[in-house]
Every structure is written in C-alpha cells, then in structure tokens.
C-alpha cells in the first residue's frame, strides 16, 4: 500500500457519506413535496422519514464502529433471525396488503423482514466462503451448500409472496457467490433448471405476473402511465419543489415512484443528480471493495454497493416504463423505515471496510515518517 492511496480512500469514504446523506435528505424532501392534501395530519410521513434518516445515520455509525469482521462472524445468527421473522409472516392472521403479507406491525413502526434478508445474505455469504476456504469454489463444497441457505431464504420470501424481492435476493446472492469464486456456468445451469420450477410453484400467481408483462407490452399499467406523464411535465427544470400534482395521480408516489416526484418537481436535472448520486455511491463502494484487505471485507463492500445499485436500477427501469412493473422501492428515496435502517447498516459496514483498509496504510505512513526522521 502506498501513501498516495490514503487520500484516495478518504475520498471514497467521503463520497459514500456524501452521496448517502444527500440521497437520504432528498428522500425526506420528497415526502414533504408529495404530502397528500387529503392527509389528516400534514407532513406526518416526512417527519417519520426524517426520524428514520437520523436512526439510519446512527446505525451506520454504530455499524462502522462494530466493523464488518464482527458482523460477518455474527452472520449465521442474523440469517436465523431473518428466517424467524419471515416465518412470522406466514402465521395466520397477519395483515395483508394487496394480497401479500410483507410487514410485521410493531406499533409505530412496520418492519419488512425481506429488507433484512438482503443484508443477512450479504453478510452470510462471506462467512460461508471463509469457513469453506478453497473448497468454496467447488460444486459440492461451495455452491450446493450455499444454494441451500440462499434457496431457503428466497423460498420464505416467495411465500409472502414477493417475487420481485425473491429475484433480487437470488441475483444478489448469485453475484456474491460468483465473485467469491463459484463458477458462473454452474449458475446458468441451475437457473435454466430452476425457472420452470419457479413458474410451476407460482401457480395462479404466475397469471398475475404474465398479466403484468402483457400489460407492459400493451397499454402499460396505470401507475407507469401516470408516472410517465409527470416525467414529461417535469421537463428539463421541473415545476418547482412543492408545485407538483403527481401525488394526486401516481399511486405509491411516496414509495416506489418517488423518482417521479423528483422528475416532476426538479426536472431532468433533478433525475440526473439522483442517478449521479447513486453512481457515485456505488462507484466508491466498488472502489472500497477492490481495496479491501480480506475476502470478507471485499464481499461485504461489493455486496452492499451492488445491492444498492441493483435495486436502484430495477426501480428506475420500472418507473421509466423500461421493464414490466414490479413493486420495488428506490434506496434512500422511498418512504420506509426497514429499508432505510438496513441501508444505514450497509453504509456503515461499507465504511468499516474502508476503515479496515486504512489502518495498515496509516501505519506504513507512520513507519515511513519514523524512518525519515
């Protein structure tokens, strides 16, 4: 490690903090801007989002102090806890929303266990990889055991049912397994066998998915169509903050379609800023991963960055009508405590990976100074 790398890593850390914070603040502003005129208590959602941001910042700080190493060591317990929470959703009497059970009502706060599942897998895969060592590259020593853990987690999420999160979890896990040395061709083989099985398992639910795809190829869904008109209304500079009307016509504007509010009120340059912030965050995250001092640090940093990037990419694709509609929140911008808190932990872990890389580098700089004197 050379002295020149120290300010480089500090720049990435600063970039991650800056981008995450900026996105989170934009998320709060969106909740202010799209506050419904019919809300009984004005700005209630924005206030809650601000509280979540503060909590997420504290969690990020805490996670960076604890460090990714301890987090990876605790990963199995984290995964068991996630399974338990996902299993709670399967209990009879859990409240349904839109035909699915995805939230556990904790009074003032609704928890979404599938958000926890993403972080649990990001931590568990490096744990498993380190435990298995060289054998992790093989089919029997690495892929099949990993598929058992990952598959069961995905299965529980699929039972909610939440096909989008299931696919996201599976892609995330697959990418992390591949970057940990599992051969890509094994996955391609498994996917070619697994997709028909998944369709069969979905049963009637598959008709719903097919209808969405057919709708996408035909007229398009209500939300997407309304979203697109507000993208267009935004134009280059937008209507101005608080001057939008998209909250009246775009369902889930505070959540999955939060980018529509940015596009309408801040225009194309607003959307561009948001995409740039995501790119900056993920780019720095990838750079931190590449400079990680061990396998666990690399996997955690890469996994956290990839998770954020992938989720943002899917969400932007959906709201711009580029892919069939799928309910998926956009990181930092969408309203929701579970997502924001998990993102806070992910950013904290990312910073801890960067910090872990910094220590030897600083030591070597000190040594160099000592030698010079």
């Amino acid at each position, binding site marked *: 490690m050379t002295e020149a790398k120290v300010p480089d890593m500090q720049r990435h850390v600063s970039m991650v903090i800056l981008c995450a914070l900026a996105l989170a603040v934009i998320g709060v502003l969106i909740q202010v801007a799209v506050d419904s005129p019919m809300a009984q208590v004005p700005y209630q959602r924005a206030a809650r989002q601000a509280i979540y941001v503060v909590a997420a910042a504290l969690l990020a700080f805490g996670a960076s102090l604890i460090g990714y190493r301890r987090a990876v060591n605790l990963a199995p317990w984290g995964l068991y806890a996630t399974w338990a929470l996902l299993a709670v959703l399967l209990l009879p009497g859990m409240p349904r929303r839109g035909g699915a059970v995805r939230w556990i009502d904790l009074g003032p706060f609704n928890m979404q266990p599938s958000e926890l599942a993403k972080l649990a897998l990001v931590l568990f895969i490096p744990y498993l990889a380190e435990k298995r060592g060289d054998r992790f590259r093989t089919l029997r020593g690495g892929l099949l055991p990993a598929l058992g853990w990952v598959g069961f987690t995905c299965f529980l999420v699929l039972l909610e049912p939440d096909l989008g999160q299931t696919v996201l979890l599976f892609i995330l896990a697959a990418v992390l397994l591949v970057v940990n040395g599992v051969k890509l061709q094994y996955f391609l083989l498994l996917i070619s066998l697994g997709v028909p099985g998944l369709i069969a398992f979905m049963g009637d639910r598959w008709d719903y998915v097919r209808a969405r795809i057919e709708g996408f190829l035909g007229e398009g869904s209500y939300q997407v169509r309304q979203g697109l008109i507000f993208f267009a209304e*935004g134009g280059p500079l937008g209507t101005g903050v608080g001057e939008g009307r998209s909250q009246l016509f775009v369902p889930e504007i505070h959540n999955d379609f939060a980018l529509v509010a940015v596009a309408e009120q801040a225009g194309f340059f607003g959307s561009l800023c948001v995409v740039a912030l995501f790119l900056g965050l993920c780019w720095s995250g990838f750079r931190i991963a590449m*400079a*990680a*001092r061990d*396998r666990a640090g690399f996997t955690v940093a890469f996994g956290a960055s990839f998770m954020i*990037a992938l989720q943002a990419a899917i969400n*932007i694709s959906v709201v711009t009508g580029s892919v069939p509609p799928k309910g998926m929140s956009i990181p930092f911008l969408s309203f929701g405590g579970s997502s924001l808190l998990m993102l806070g932990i992910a950013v904290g872990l990312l910073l801890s990976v960067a910090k872990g890389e910094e220590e030897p580098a600083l030591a070597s700089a000190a040594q160099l100074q000592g030698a010079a004197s």
Partner: protein
Amino acid sequence: MSTEVKTALVDRRSAQLFALIIATIFCFLLVRLFMVQMRPASNIEGKADAQRFRRESRVGTALPEKAVRAELRDREGRLLAATWFEYDLVVDMVELLRGADNRAERAGRLSRLSNATAKALSACGRKTEMRALATDLMKAANSQTPVRWLRLVKGMDPKSQRAVEAAVVGTRGLRFEHRERRSFPYGAATAQVVGIVGENPKDAVGRVAGRTGVEFQLDRILAGEAGRLPLEKDAAGRELLPRWIAEAEPVPGGMVTLTLDAEIQRICMEVLEKSVGACKAEKGSAVVLSARNGEVLAACTWPSVDPEKLNAKTANNLNLGAFLDLYEPGSTIKPLFISWALQKGLVTMDTRFDCGGADGVHQFGPRLVREYHANPNPLTVREVLIKSSNVGAVRIGHERLGIDGEYEALAAFRMSGRLKVGYPSMPNNRYTPRAQAHSLYTPTSFPQGYEMMMSPLMMARMFLVFARGGEFMDPVLVLEASKDGRVIAPDHSDPGRHVRVLDREVALSVRGALERVMEEGTGKSARSSKYSIAAKTGTPKIGKTEVYNPIICTMAPVHERDPEIVVVVIHHHVRNRGPGTYTGGTVSGPPARDIIERTLEYMRIPHEAGRTGGVQKP
C-alpha cells in the same frame, strides 16, 4: 500479509464485470430518463388523461337547475308532471378541518356545524337530533380510514335547504347536492298516459328517467342534456374538486304539451269508476278523440293508480288499457264493411236482405249465423246497422263484398299494425292474414267482428272516419314539444294526414243510420236529452263462456252537423247476470253518454234544442 494475498480467493474480474454491467445499465437508464423527460411520446398524455379524467354530468351541483327535467302540460296548460329537488348536505371533511391544529378547535368546528344544521332543520319542522349529527361528524373525523365526503343530512326539501344554507353560510367544505323528484298533480287520473319516472342507475348525478307512458316515450326531450364537467380522480379513485368550467353547458329539457285535457280525463275516470263498479267488470277503458283533428282528449282505464302510491300490487294499474289492450270489436265493426259495400256501389241503404225471419238464423254453407235480436224480415242495409243484424252484416260482407272485398275494406281503414301515436309498447292490431283465411269462416266472421283484435283507440280511429265525413286521420297525443329551441307539433294541414277513405255521402249516410241506433236500435240506453249521438254497440263474447266485453263506439253531436268528439267505452270481462247486464248498449252505453254530455258541456257546446226522452232504462 498483503491485501492481494488475503483477497486472492475472490474473483476480481467477475466483480469488475458486474460493476461494468451495472454502470452500463445506469447509462441506459440515463438515456431513458432523457427520453421520457425531454422527448416524451406524444400519445402518453392522451392515455394518462383518459385514465385521469372522467367526463361527468353535473347538473346537480355545478350548474343548478339548468338541465332539469321539463314539465308536461295538458292542452289547456295544466301541469301534468313537474320536477322539484331534494337536497343532501355534503361535508368535505378535509376542507372543514383544514388548519384545525388541535383537538379543541376540531371539536369546535364540528359542534358549530351540527348545532347550526340541527337548529335550522328544527325551525323548518324537520326532526333532527343534534346529537346524531354530531356523532356522524365525529365518527368521520376520527375514522381510521380517512373520510373525505360525509353526507350529513339527506332528503331536505327546498325550504329546509334554504334554511340550512343560511345557517351554515361561511362554513368551509359544505355543499348541497340535489336529486330530481317528479310530481304528478293529477295523480291517478293521468298517470297511465303521463307515465312514471324512476331512478336512473346509469346517471351519476341522480337524475330520473322515464319508465312508462309519455315520460318514457319522450324521455330524451324531457330530460334535456346534462352539462359535462371534467372531473379528476386521484390515484385512489377519490373525486377531486371539479373544475367549475363546463365542457358542455347543460341543455334544459323541452316542455311537452299533450293533446290530453286533464278535466276530460278526470271526467272519464269518474264515470268509469262508477260503471266498472256497477257492472262488476274487471276494468273499463275510455277514449275521447277530437273529431276535428284526431287529437286524443282523454284516454284512461279504471282502475288506475297514483304514482306517489305505487307499489308492487298496484303496478299493473299503470297499464293504459285504452291503448294497449286488444279486443274483438264485435258488432262495432259492421259500419266498416257496410260502408265499404256502399262505397263500392254493391248495395244502397235501401237494399233489402233476407235475414232469417222470426227465428233469426241463416245458413252460410255449413255455418249457421244467428241474430242476437229478433228482427223483422227482410231488413234494409240501414236497418241492418240500426238493429245490428248479424245475418244482414254477414250477407253484405260475405255475399256482396266477398273475402277479397272484406280484406280490401280492412286495408282501406288501416285496421292492422301499430297506431302512430308513439306511445310506448303500442300493440299490433291484427286480423286473420289473407294467406291463412278460411274461405267460408273468415268472411262470415269478419262482419260480426271476430277473427280480429283491436285496441279501443283503434276502434275510435275507425269511427273517426265516419265522424270526419269519410276522411281517415291518425290520432295524435303530443300537441307540442320543443327540442333544441324548435317546436315540434303535428301539422294538421299536412295533406298526408288526411286520407279519404269513403265518399262524404257514404259516410254521412252511415252516420245517419248510426244516429238512429240511439232511437230505434241497440243504443237506446245511451240516448241523451242534451246531445244527438251516433253510436254502434258491440257485445263480443269470450269463447264459449258467458263473459263479454261490452263496447260502444259513439260520436256527438251529430244532428245536422259534424261531430265534435268520438268516444269509445269498453268494459273488460262482464259476466251475463241476466238481460241488460252485459251488452254494449246497456253496460257501456250509459257511461259513454255521461262522458259525452259532460265533455261537451265542458267544451261549451250548447245543448241541442228539441231533444227529448233522455235516458231510457233497459
């Protein structure tokens, strides 16, 4: 240990590849964002607007009382049907509580509204509990699922509405919605012709639609066209505040004036009520036509029903039997065939026929035809009419006109098909089609008024030919209707409406014979001391039972002048309870005479001098 050694087990190239894929996806998304924001597809706006806007009629709230259902009036301008409004007080809870930051202020606003409303309603004599109003408001305000619109008070009359409006003036978030209600001042007397209205489930603003009668027939004219306001809905399907700029202004309904005279209608109803009760008929119908222009002055069937008191049991009484029921005309058809034979020169009024003599039986091939009355023999054509001789009528029809001549006569008088008065569900008047006619039975049945079915209105139209001196004219029911600012009215001068069927001399000679029916024939019971009446009675039998439908077709006054009115009265299913209890002359004659006398007096037609006799008891 160096970083490279510790991370040697990870696949850096795969990681870089995945990072590159993500970067590529983001680049694509940037292009896509540019496209949707800077160069949107032209059709997106139309599709989104189609989802968002609902073109809706808003007569109720936005543009009050401009597109109300129009009035129906009779020929004298009397109101037959009119619209009024019933109001609901609707509260926009969001608007009402906007800016109320604490519980005390919210409670204060709710209680002020409920107090003011309850007081105003009590002042109008409407019992309303303040506590109930307050409870409704509190429930809506504290509901877990947000309530936007609360219908606080329903069904206020205009007076209560004005009082409440004055009491709550200045309170935010209140609006009154109104619904159409229809009143029928003449109730049961005109209900069958005017018809009724009902809620229209397709109409979003609660306007009514015609269900029966003229209300149904002229619904499009009466209803007008509601204005259209673009109405936006939010993503949850909740109605947003409408833009108060109409896309299309409402067009008020066009007022309709009927040829009906409510007074004559009422006279008919009163007379029928008595006569139906006296003869124990199932029902009775009467039609009064103006002989001058074919306008329907009255058409009714007893029993009727007041639309305000309509229920499942009385709903059938809304049927206007005078237009809709079909009967065999019996002997009332005889003038038609006889006049046609006169018209064709096949007989004269003085041509004599052997009508069976004292036993009153004549054999036509295998068929025996009997006289109903014991008539002298032989009979002239005039006497055949006066005495209502079955044998004479059959001999004229069958032997002189022949089957083709009879069909020719029916066609000339247009005795098949629907009458063109436009009234809904008018039946098909009909007779045995030529292709199905029996060579003997059909031509011997027709002159007796069998093998054919016609409505009382059709019978009246047939007699209108004789009343108008041989000129055919279709009856009309609508005197005037305005649509799109234009007045639509039947053109009585239109030559197409006047079709000569008989020579005037023929018609007058038949009319003269019919006048003598009242003096010497079957209509003695209907003889009037005030006006000269020409009539033909009929007593068609229902199958082989002893149940009859006694009919009388009349016109008056006829003495040395053209008549003013044609009146047909028929009683439905009268049982034979002895002589004089079931025939056209004795059952339907007296009510027809009463209708004629009272109607002509109402029309200020002076009594005819020198008339004596009055009512002759059967």
